[in-house]
């Protein structure tokens, strides 16, 4: 199974900004997702939005990008064009239902 549309959109935007090459851009976003307990294959645009806000700034700063705010805004804008992304019946959704 390929990575989610949201993950691909965020990586492409970060790479096209020129701040990081393709490998570094994907690795940076993967690390941020890992910290949030998310997986590139299933992450949705909404989930990635939270990662951008809470975790990606520190990851970008640690890679020498001194003012990551503009970059984060650009990636957020790119994610607006991506639909939900996550599978309908994720383990999280199922277990939420089973105890409701």
């Amino acid at each position: 199974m390929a990575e989610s549309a949201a993950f691909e959109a965020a990586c492409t935007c970060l790479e096209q900004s020129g701040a990081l090459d393709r490998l570094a851009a994907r690795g940076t976003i993967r690390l941020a997702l890992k910290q949030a307990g998310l997986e590139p294959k299933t992450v949705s645009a909404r989930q990635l939005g939270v990662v951008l806000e809470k975790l990606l700034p520190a990851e970008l700063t640690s890679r020498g990008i001194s003012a990551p705010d503009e970059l984060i805004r650009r990636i957020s804008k790119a994610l607006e064009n991506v639909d939900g992304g996550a599978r309908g019946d994720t383990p999280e959704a199922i277990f939420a239902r089973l105890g409701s």
Partner: protein
Amino acid sequence: MQALAAAAIGLLVVVSIAVGFRLLALHRKSGAAPELLLGWMLLLSVGVGYPLLIAADRARPEWSGTLYIISTLAVNVGFSLLFGFTWKVFQPDARWARTLAGAGVLVMLAKAVQRSFDVHARGVIHVASEPLSESLLQTGPVLVAYLWTAWESLRYHGLMRRRVRVGLADATVSDRFLLWGLMALFVASGVLLNAVALALGVEVFTSPWILLGSSVTGLSQAVLLVLAFLPPRSYLNWVRARAAASGA
């Protein structure tokens, strides 16, 4: 000790039936497969299978064989559904998981049919006197099903804990993965305990140590099932408060 074990198994059976019916009621509303698979799994394997297996060992000879066949079919069909549940929930797109689940179902069903034919041909089979190789063919797949379930659920709990920390998930749902994973570990421990006892020739229905072990695992399973699928509001509030206190 037998009274404690009987109480523990009795409680587990009652809780499994209650949770099983609740999940089937949920399926009527949602139409989704996971609640159907888990609901029938609990009803068949624990609600029907366990009590009839114990009854078969104590019933009059003319009833024992029939009870044994029904219990074996219920237990093995139930555990087959667990393979299906774990595959469908955690690894629906993975070919290896589909293969593992398919193999598990095939072995469980083949073993149920073989045991039924054996009872028909040879009369009553007592679990304790079954040859070790036969016994392992039954307990092996059950152990695999529960260890796989425990691994997937606890792995997912690890992901969920991190999501809770950044505000992306509900602490009570994260906790449910932990409870279900622990439940599966307790079942696996009970199965392993009984398998080792049978291999050593210990009488599982009368040995105090085995009865104590079965009581502990049975009571733990019952408590974990209730907290996971029929949680009291006070427990959910406690989980949320604990998550909030830890900064999530």
